[in-house]
């Protein structure tokens, strides 16, 4: 009982961090402190871009849902590192290539693919590919390929900021490093929560439901983004 309460408290804290970060940026008065800070920085704005990258990752529920799916059944830390590294390589490649090569992908379509990646991961976690089709895509290749799409998604967000050419590489690298820091923070919270959850009775039953829920979330993302594409084209 107390373990369950602890898990809930931990999840609630993680939730509060995400909500406050997402909403607090809009609160009156906060912006002036940020402004004072930014105006004191000259040249490439490393800290602000790093902050933006981390913020995007921690408040980006699409990336987080995918990561939850990826590490859901990874019990060994080595495996977590392996898969997360593949994801990082994938999204860093396309983030860099997208911004430096000025490749402008459609943000809605990219985000729909990110939604698909969430559905894929949930479906794989319930054993859908093996049981229904008899063949499963290689999970490592899949996490790398979907990582590439997540990177394009990050690139579209950064391109919306109308980046100045001066200090572009430094700012881009800062953003990327920020993304990894944010990912690390989010992963830590998710891992703590998952570890608690796994030790609970009936985890496998709940795990099935959780991954079905993950699929639901992914489907919603796909519909949401495709509708956005249809409305704004």
């Amino acid at each position: 009982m107390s373990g369950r309460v602890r898990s809930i408290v931990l999840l609630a804290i993680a939730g509060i961090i995400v909500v406050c970060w997402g909403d607090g940026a809009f609160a009156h008065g906060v912006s002036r402190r940020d402004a004072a800070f930014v105006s004191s920085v000259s040249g490439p704005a490393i800290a602000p871009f790093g902050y933006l990258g981390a913020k995007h990752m921690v408040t980006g529920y699409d990336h987080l849902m995918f990561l939850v799916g990826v590490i859901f059944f990874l019990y060994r830390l080595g495996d977590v590192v392996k898969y997360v590294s593949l994801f990082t390589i994938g999204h860093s490649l396309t983030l860099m290539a997208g911004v430096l090569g000025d490749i402008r992908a459609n943000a809605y379509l990219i985000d729909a693919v990110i939604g698909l990646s969430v559905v894929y991961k949930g479906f794989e976690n319930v054993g859908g590919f093996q049981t229904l089709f008899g063949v499963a895509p290689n999970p490592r290749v899949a996490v790398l390929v979907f990582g590439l799409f997540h990177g394009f998604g990050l690139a579209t967000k950064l391109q919306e900021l109308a980046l100045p050419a001066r200090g572009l590489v430094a700012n881009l690298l800062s953003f990327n490093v920020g993304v990894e820091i944010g990912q690390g923070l989010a992963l830590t919270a998710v891992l703590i929560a998952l570890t608690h959850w796994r030790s609970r009775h009936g985890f496998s039953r709940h795990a099935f439901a959780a991954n079905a829920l993950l699929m639901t979330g992914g489907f919603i993302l796909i519909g949401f983004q495709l509708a956005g594409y249809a409305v704004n084209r």
Partner: protein
Amino acid sequence: MNAGATAPSRRRIAMATLLALCAAVAILFVAVLPAEYGIDPLGTGRMLGLTALSGTVEQVAPSLSASVASAAPEQSVAMQQDVYEVELRPFEGVEYKYRLELAAGLVYAWTASASVGYEFHGEPDGAPPKYFDSYNKGVGVEGHGTFIAAKAGIHGWFWENKGATRVKVRLRTTGFYAKSTEYRDGDRIERRFPAAPPR
């Protein structure tokens, strides 16, 4: 992948996937599409008041009581026109507000050179410190409409540059106000308009 768990049956997986899809479609049509895009085929968005979030509905302040609207009160303050321009540094925010008496009207249009966070809001007279009514908020490059003050007080905009480059914001208004106030960098700059504007 699914280590440690007893493998669920084909039927169970298929059902769960189908259920996930159905739930997603239901949530999309009931809530997400009406709230985000104003697409409301089932009418649930209107019923739950979600379409108001989509920004496709006319952006108006909370409706006035019928008596105020139908009385069409004369304004004691002269009609004014104003143009306010500001350049925001990255992460900088500014507020620009007008003093409006009860039922005073304001026609406004603002544009920004890049996407900004905004909130059109008002601080009614006699309200506790930090209290404000939010009329509409969001992220965008423009806003325009007609506003009629349901409460006497100061009413106006908060804009915030959330990007990494400078953004210019330009506001044009016509209305019945005698004073505006700008809040920037912790300063408060008041501007008074002449009682009878030059013809």
